[in-house]
């Protein structure tokens, strides 16, 4: 077991934006969650083995972003660029300095579809080098983060963090480090995952026996974190993020220890945690996550699980969970100054926990 990081002073979350199977934007997301509306829909024949998925409705990069610079843009990049645009519009009052604004994006492998399309082109073309060069920027893992920065003119540190389901929370931790070490003044941080035929088949073929046939979802959520003083009170304060590795199969022990250390690092009491969001992972990890949250906290019906509504969103899951917590807290006047915990598990063994104070 290894520790990644502990807490420091809190960092302000001054804005967020989301693109989800409920649609583009915060209000449809929060309303859909509050209503408990499932987004699972039948997909077209040949679009994946499962027959259903939770897709961002009618999302098309060219329709959302325009025809310039989007010809070869894949879905995950389109969602990330578009969501970041929404985020930048929301925090426009903070007058971000492009030179000190960083960007951290969580992913699984970038776009499995673009990578496979590129490789297939090389194998099936007349010559191995007869590939589509326009795919290259998107077939690499950091294509989306790079395009976000180019599109929006963000010139600070640019990081892509590939960590499967833990990516969203680990990206937050990476953003914390950039801010606490003074490498950036503000960090735009989040995670994105696209639905594609390639991802659907990878998911189908790699599913463990204890977690068969998850309904896949997609989406992107992004947050603006800053260490600089803000004129207005923040939407929430990130108090601590921690990650551990479960190497012995005892998910419950690792998750519980990770949560306890996160709470202790922030110097708060478990009884003060008011809302929690487990990742909703299938199988033993997900069950252990719910059990640990139930044993440690008294959150009642404020246990926010989004996987049943938006599907298995892999890299985007942690970011969408955080967005869900912020979105639901926004609608609840009792949330002021309360604490919320978001947890995540990945089949590779990573356990990640973040703790925030709502405003």
């Amino acid at each position, binding site marked *: 077991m290894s520790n990644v990081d502990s807490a420091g002073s809190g960092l302000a979350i001054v804005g967020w934006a989301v693109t989800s199977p409920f649609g583009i934007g915060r209000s449809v997301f929060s309303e859909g969650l509050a209503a408990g509306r499932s987004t699972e829909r039948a997909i077209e024949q040949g679009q994946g083995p499962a027959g259903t998925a939770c897709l961002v409705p009618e999302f098309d990069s060219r329709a959302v972003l325009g025809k310039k610079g*989007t*010809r070869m843009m894949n879905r995950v990049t389109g969602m990330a660029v578009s969501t970041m645009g929404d985020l930048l519009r929301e925090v426009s009052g903070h007058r971000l300095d492009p030179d000190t604004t960083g960007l951290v994006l969580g992913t699984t492998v970038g776009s499995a579809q673009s990578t496979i399309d590129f490789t297939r082109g090389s194998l099936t073309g007349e010559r191995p080098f*007869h590939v*589509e060069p326009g795919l290259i920027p998107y077939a690499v893992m950091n294509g989306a983060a790079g395009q976000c920065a180019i599109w929006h003119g963000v010139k600070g540190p640019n990081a892509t963090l590939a960590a499967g389901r833990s990516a969203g929370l680990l990206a937050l931790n990476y953003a914390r480090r950039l801010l606490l070490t003074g490498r950036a003044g503000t960090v735009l941080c989040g995670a994105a995952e696209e639905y594609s035929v390639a991802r659907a088949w990878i998911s189908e073929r790699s599913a463990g026996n204890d977690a068969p046939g998850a309904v896949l979802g997609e989406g992107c959520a992004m947050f603006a974190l800053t260490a600089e003083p803000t004129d207005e009170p923040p939407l929430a304060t990130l108090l601590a993020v921690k990650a551990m590795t479960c190497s012995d199969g005892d998910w419950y022990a690792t998750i519980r220890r990770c949560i306890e250390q996160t709470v202790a690092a922030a110097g708060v009491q478990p009884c003060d945690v008011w809302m929690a969001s487990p990742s909703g992972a299938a199988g033993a990890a997900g069950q252990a996550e719910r059990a640990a949250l139930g044993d440690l906290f008294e959150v009642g019906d404020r246990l926010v699980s989004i996987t049943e509504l938006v599907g298995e969103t892999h890299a985007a899951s942690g970011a969408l969970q955080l967005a869900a917590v912020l979105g639901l807290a926004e609608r609840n006047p009792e949330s002021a100054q309360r604490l919320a915990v978001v947890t995540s598990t990945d089949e590779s063994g990573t356990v990640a926990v973040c703790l925030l104070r709502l405003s």
Partner: protein
Amino acid sequence: MAVVTPDEKQLIKGIVCDILELESDEITDDSLFVEDHDADSMRLIEILSSLELNLKVTIEQSELSRMVNLQGVYEVVGNTAR
């Protein structure tokens, strides 16, 4: 010197317009890809590669310096061994 047929010109123009994200009436034989149409080096490589794929020709990368507009592309393609 070999020449490109009107059909080939049409195909080449279609490829260039697609890659530069232009409508066919926005480009002329003389308008410059980089200066007039905001192309970068990546777009130029895409044009070269797409011509190779679609016209079944091989174009040396050194020819990129002549492929600054449609006229230049017609000349380069016309000179390739086919």
